[in-house]
């Protein structure tokens, strides 16, 4: 992943986290693994940016967290979406679609429109 990919990822990090948690509660490492797995390793999330983002989203009420004790191994902090988080995800999805369509209209050159006048 090059520098420009990283810049794009930074702008969409919160939306990606919300989307992953939409399928159920997960702990930090699982969230990073899910994003990496779903994108075939294209979006490689640095953990150094994941945790500040998770804590900021929790502070803003988009996520709630809970420590779950396990019989084996250390307890884990699971994050889940709040109602406000679900609303934010819905808005992010709509915004992303509009943004993607707008960028497509400029970046994607169709054959009928291509070429010199």
């Amino acid at each position, binding site marked *: 992943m090059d520098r420009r990919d990283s810049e794009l990822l930074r702008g969409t990090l919160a939306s990606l986290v919300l989307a992953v948690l939409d399928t159920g509660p997960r*702990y*930090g*490492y699982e969230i*990073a693994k899910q994003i990496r797995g779903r994108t075939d390793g294209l979006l490689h999330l*640095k*953990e*150094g940016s994941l*945790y*500040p983002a998770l*804590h*900021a989203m929790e*502070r803003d009420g988009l996520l709630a967290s809970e*420590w779950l004790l396990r019989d084996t191994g*250390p*307890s*884990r*902090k699971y994050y889940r979406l709040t109602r406000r988080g679900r609303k934010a995800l819905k808005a992010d999805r709509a915004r992303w679609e509009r943004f993607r369509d707008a960028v497509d209209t400029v970046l994607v050159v169709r054959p009928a429109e291509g070429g010199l006048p």
Partner: protein
Amino acid sequence: MTPEMEQFLSSMRENLNLPDAQAELIVAELRVHLQSDFLDRLRRSGRPEVEAAREAMLEFGDAMGLARELNAEHALHSRRMAMVRNIGAVMLALVGFFAVLFACDPWGLMHVVERLFPRNPNGVMIVGWLAPLWRGLWWMTQHLDVAVQDTILQVLPLVVVGLLVGHIARARGWVLALVPWFLFWALTWQAVARGKFPFGSMTHLAQPAIQAIALVSGAYLGRRLANWHSRTQKVLTGMSVLVATILYLVGFSRTNEGLAVATAFMAGYACVVGLATWGVLILLRRCGQGRQASAAQ
């Protein structure tokens, strides 16, 4: 966990400028992540342990930078909470102020001022300036049910004081919260003993309310001075000091007038308590820093 990973976490823990319990939880969360990542890498590629640990740590980047970012996130939350609490404290102070207005009979006070300073009409004039507002509020209290009046006059000022002392206690400990309270009693006792206490002519109910106002303003000023971080806090502190100083000077320039003396007493007291609280907080903070420095050595 390898020793390098523990060292990484401990270095980050040292740089987390958060309450101990919160910092421990953050480190515990990151430890789970580091360990899972490390074990996954070992399992997947069979790499040497040292290399897998180094790669897992690389994902987190610089320990100090990560701690700084987490500090910033949590500090923002604390600042918001502090702002909400400050707004609450100011609202309570206003409630205390109105409680004083309810507690004092304006006609009775004007009569007292006239009798105390028969040759100086200015005192009566100042009371007269405030009289319309005061009379309106007084009229309101007269039309309230007796039980409601009692609640407003007696309970509210004490609630204000109690909440404020509780607020300071939560932030700085009970010992410090009681300092302004005892300081006020000492000053009041001195003033009464010398016959200079300006509120003797008012109803006895006014006194706790006036104490509440003085205590709230003093402690608020003290807290603002002690939390000298953001521009907003500096502006608030500057304004508090300016207003208190103006009130104090105005009060001194009219020492023959009952209400002005009362104003001067309250404003002066606010300054004294504010500065005393500030001094104690700074002292405690320095002691704390000294202890941390010696622990680090």
